[in-house]
């Protein structure tokens, strides 16, 4: 039995699309106060895992528990505890950020005063004032990403699920986001699941990482633990990643074929 304080527990998860197995018996958990980074190349199964957690994909096997609640059994209750930022900026294009956030706040039963205060804070931090009443379809990808981040943070969920959240953000917003996430997870034992293929970001932000390759977890732990397991001294996360995913040689060959230093 999983304790209810564990933000996320993924047990033996499998996701299949037609003939292709995108996630293969994946098991990991996000502990209270932790930022967990899910690392992997394109097509490694990060987004499929995340979509299963937020209810967009139906897994063929396994169990997903958010604070002890089964995603398959209590989807609505689980969604109340989740804040989600998708990989692509999925938004109601015909709404403005204000209208979109009002809709999200309404669905999440937020008090108008609380919703306004939080929105004001985030809008000021991300410098969104000028775009706040523009139709979303006219906004840049980075600005859309900011709107999604505010939508995910508006109800201060105990579990944040972020799929490549820093994509398209400007350096200033990336910095704000990193600091915000570090503080957010530490506060009240919240959890953050964070997918990325940018190793530097994962190194700076994540307490632990899980390295996914073709749907299988190849390694898991903090950077120090991964180094210790692999007896890799002061290797960077990128080097550990390439070794665990057995892509190191492939990368060298590819670089050599392109005329670089293989």
């Amino acid at each position, binding site marked *: 039995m999983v304790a209810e304080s564990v933000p996320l527990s993924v047990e033996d998860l499998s996701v299949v*699309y*037609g*003939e292709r197995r995108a996630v293969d018996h994946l098991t990991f958990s996000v502990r209270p106060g932790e930022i967990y980074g899910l690392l992997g190349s394109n097509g490694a199964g990060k987004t499929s895992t995340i*979509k299963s957690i*937020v*209810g*967009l*994909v*139906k897994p063929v096997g396994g169990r997903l528990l958010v604070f002890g609640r089964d995603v398959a059994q209590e*989807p*609505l*209750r689980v*969604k*109340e505890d*989740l804040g*989600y930022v*998708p990989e*692509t900026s*999925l*938004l*109601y*294009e*015909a*709404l*403005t950020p*204000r*209208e979109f*956030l*009002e*809709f*999200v*706040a*309404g*669905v*999440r*039963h*937020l008090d*108008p005063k609380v*919703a*306004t205060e939080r*929105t*004001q804070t985030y*809008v*000021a931090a991300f410098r969104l*004032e*000028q775009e*706040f*009443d*523009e*139709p979303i*379809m*006219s906004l840049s990808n980075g600005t859309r990403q900011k709107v999604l981040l505010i939508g995910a943070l508006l109800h201060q969920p105990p579990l944040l699920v972020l799929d490549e959240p820093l994509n398209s953000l400007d350096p200033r917003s990336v910095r704000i986001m990193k600091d915000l996430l570090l503080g957010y997870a530490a506060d009240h034992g919240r959890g953050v699941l964070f997918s990325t293929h940018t190793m530097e970001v994962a190194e700076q932000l994540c307490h632990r990482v899980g390295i996914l390759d073709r749907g299988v977890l190849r390694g898991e732990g903090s950077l120090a633990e991964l180094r210790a397991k692999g007896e890799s001294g002061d290797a960077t996360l990128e080097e550990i990643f390439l070794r665990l995913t057995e892509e190191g040689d492939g990368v060298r060959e590819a670089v050599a074929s392109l005329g670089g230093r293989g």
Partner: protein
Amino acid sequence: MTWREVAHLSDVAYGELSFQAIYASKQGNLAPPGPAKDAVARARRRSMQSKAVVSFVLVLLALGAAFALRVASTRGKYLPSGTIPLGAFQAGVITALLALELAFLWWAGMQILPTFLSSGALPVLEALPIDERTLRRTAGVLYLRMFDLPALTILLATPLAIGLVLGPLAGLAVVPGAFAVVGLSLALALITGRYFLRRVQGSRGGGGATIVRWTYLVLWLVPVFSMFLFVVAAPAFLTWLGHLAENPPNLETHLLFLAFPFALATLPALVANGPFGLGLDPAGWAFLGLGIAIYVSLAAWALVWVLESVRRVGTIPALAELPPVVAPVRLRPQRPVLAVLTKDLRIASRTPGYAFLILLPILDAVAIGLLTYVSPSGTSTSLSIALAAVATAAVLATFFGPAFFAIEVFAFSYGRTLPLADRTLIFGKTFIVAAMYLIAATTVLGIALARIFEPAVFAAFILAELPGVAAAAFLELGLLYRRARRRGLPITNLYANAWFSFVVSIPGVFMAGLPLVVFGIVGMRGFDVGVLAMAIFALIELAMCSAFALRGRDR
């Protein structure tokens, strides 16, 4: 590049357009399992089905016109009150047919255009090393392909239907009219669609801007709706034609020959009957010739313009540049059902197709309600017309009810990650349908207040039908939602799932219509008894349909 290569490129782009229209993967929905080739083939089939639905309606319109012409020829009597020359009657019917075809194809085009622009099918080609002319031609051919079956239906079914009743030569004589309808509606769809994207879809939020947006939408719907109004007012139009025929040719009749689409509709009637006394003096002939020449030339020019302009419309930024404005950051969240309703109305206010669906029952009610002024005040005819207006509003609101789920297709996958219960969504959509009906019916009441006996009884009739309308919405939404959940598809959009929306509408309209039938039967014993029986029946329907739609576990 050759036309063969243009055909190939446009075919690839059309596959992408169909795929996005059906699976909406750009909105984050998962692509279906299996090879991409199969998914694209399925999407193409679905798109073809949607076009087949539009074509089916167009065939029905042509057959309806043929039936009216046939009945008139058989009976030798062309109007309930008085007579008009047979040729004038025929010209009137063909005018109505061409007007309806234009309105319908134009409307269908406005539904498709947002998908066309958001699919990104054209911008992808822009990055490839393809010359300007080929890109322009490819875009034009792609646009034509979106309309191919409906346009061909108009070009073939109209002459066939008219030719069947009035003879082959008359059938041939309506070809210029059919051609003009196709050319002008394709151009109008492109112009209005583009206009909406820039001025309506791209407008800011806020109370004042919302009012301006809806005003734009109403204004912009007037041309489409005026065609519909024209058909509703067809008897009055025919009476007017009869009146013109009785008098010597004058400026009024001459100007009529210049009007679209009467000029083009007169041609087959002339071929079938010869000059029929509608002011066809030398000046009349000149006006008629001028009218036909203008509209055929205009349609040809419009087609060329469409072919040349689609690429520009499809690739440059759709939204107008707006000066920066900073308003206070304040949120006013509502309860979930109201949040869904408000969100849908806001999306509709920037999406012409959906706005049209909301406004159609209301504008229809206005048009029919105004007809009460044709009959003497306080007569049973006035009341019958007002009741018919309410009944039509009920049917139109429920016929298009499922379309409101279409709005969910935008970022539907994001919506599914929110703690939004199925029943909240269904309630929100049902509220919209019920509100559309109530606004339309109340508008009729307002218009006809001075024309009918006992407005309170009429109001009771409106309220008695309300549960029937809500029941129809529940039934249709329940069916749609189950299917979407089962298949894992975005709920629907008009272009992608038109066939299923159409099929689901049939039991819905049936459900909304049954209380009216009960009123028709029981009402013969007295209006009050009829309204009471209708209300009881509608409430039973509501109980059954809401139980059907809302049962099961929320997800």
